[in-house]
Structures are given as C-alpha cells and as structure tokens.
C-alpha cells in the first residue's frame, strides 16, 4: 500500500491524481477505467478540500492498494475535518429535463455509479472514505 499525505486544497488535485495513476501504471488500465478512477479521486479529494476544514485548511491522506487476482484498486481518503458523510446526500433525479435540473450534486453520484464499492465511516475523529474498482 502506498500513502500520500497532502494539504487538502484544490491546487493539489493534480498531484493526487498523478500519485494514484503512478500506482496503477504497470497494470495497464483501460482508458475508460482510468478515467472513472481519476474522476472518483477528483470528486472525493475536491470535496475534502472544499468542506472538511473550511474555512481553515488541513491535510488529507490518500492510500492506494492494488489487489491482485482479481485485479482491483482500493483507494482510501482520510481527513481529520468535520464529520461529513458525502454518501448520505440523496441522489439527483437523472430523469429531469435541462430546465428543471439543479446545476450541482453530480460529483458524488458519479462516484457511487462508477465504483464497485463505496464506503464511509467516521472513526477516531477521522472521516474515512473508501472506494474500490475492479480493473
């Protein structure tokens, strides 16, 4: 397992995605899966950057574990910010027309839809969010 501890700011997003991609490089992910993983990492990290410590700043840890046979990747985001379960929010209504749709609220929904497993827990003063994707 590899870990990156980094200040949770939107400016650090590219470094986080790069870190995750580096761990996956040797496994030859398809374009579609790679984008789904990067997208989930972006939505979750940006969520921490925007909400966990606001208006202060703080750190987030990103742990990447590649599991072989069957090949899958497990990514865990840990922060010491306010308790916040992003998964508790209700899903957007995907049948609404352009006029009736609210602009936001699609990020976490995309994570839920594109990952094989999404789990949140608050433990020892930490938000712990884990995603898993078969690759």
């Amino acid at each position, binding site marked *: 397992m590899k870990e990156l501890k980094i200040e949770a700011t*939107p400016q650090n997003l590219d470094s986080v995605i790069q870190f995750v991609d580096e761990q996956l490089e040797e496994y030859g992910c398809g374009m579609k899966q790679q984008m789904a993983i990067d*997208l989930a990492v972006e939505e979750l990290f940006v969520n921490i950057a925007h909400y966990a410590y606001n208006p202060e700043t703080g750190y987030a840890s990103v742990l990447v574990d590649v599991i072989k046979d069957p090949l899958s990747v497990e990514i865990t985001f840990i922060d010491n910010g306010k308790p916040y379960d992003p998964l508790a929010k209700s899903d957007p209504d995907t049948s609404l027309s352009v006029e009736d749709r609210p*602009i936001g609220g699609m990020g976490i929904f995309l994570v839920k839809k594109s990952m094989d497993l999404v789990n949140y827990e608050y433990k020892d003063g930490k938000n712990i969010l884990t995603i898993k994707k078969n690759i």
Partner: protein
Amino acid sequence: MNVNVQKEGAKLILGVEGKLSTNTAPALEKAMKDNVEGVTELVFDFEKLDYMASAGLRILLSSAKIMKKKGSMKIINVTEPVMEVFNLTGLSDVMDIETI
C-alpha cells in the same frame, strides 16, 4: 486544458482539448460567457477532450439552460470515456450529444 474559440456569426464553437476538471473548468466557463452574447447556436467540440469531471457537467448544464432560451446547443465528437459521464447522469437523454 485548451479552449479553441471559433465564432461564425451567431454560431459559436468551443473546441475543448485536454482535461476538464475542477481546476480547468472556470476557463471554459469564461470562454463561454465571454462569447455567448448574440449566439443562437452553441457547439462544444470534445474530440480532443480525454477527461471530464462533474465541474465540466456543471458548465454544460448551465450553458444548456442559457441556450434553451435563445437557441440550440450540442456537444459533438464525444469520446467513449467522456460519454460514460453523460450516460451515468442521464444527461445523454436530455442533451444533444454526438459521439465520435
């Protein structure tokens, strides 16, 4: 990310290249807002776009809301990974989207 702005009368084509993420989305939003006045036909060309997160969807949805009142909007040359984002959110059913 790069945005290639092409304006032909009332038609505006925004060619987006690279990655449309939380950090790059504001540049696309600016290109749209700076050029949308008087436009009745808005086209996003995603041929060279290889990544899009929800920040991109927000801009497309707000552009679509603007264009509903004054003309048409379509997204063309969408690659498979990006199309998945439209499919998962149901936006592929309510927006004019053409795959590559």
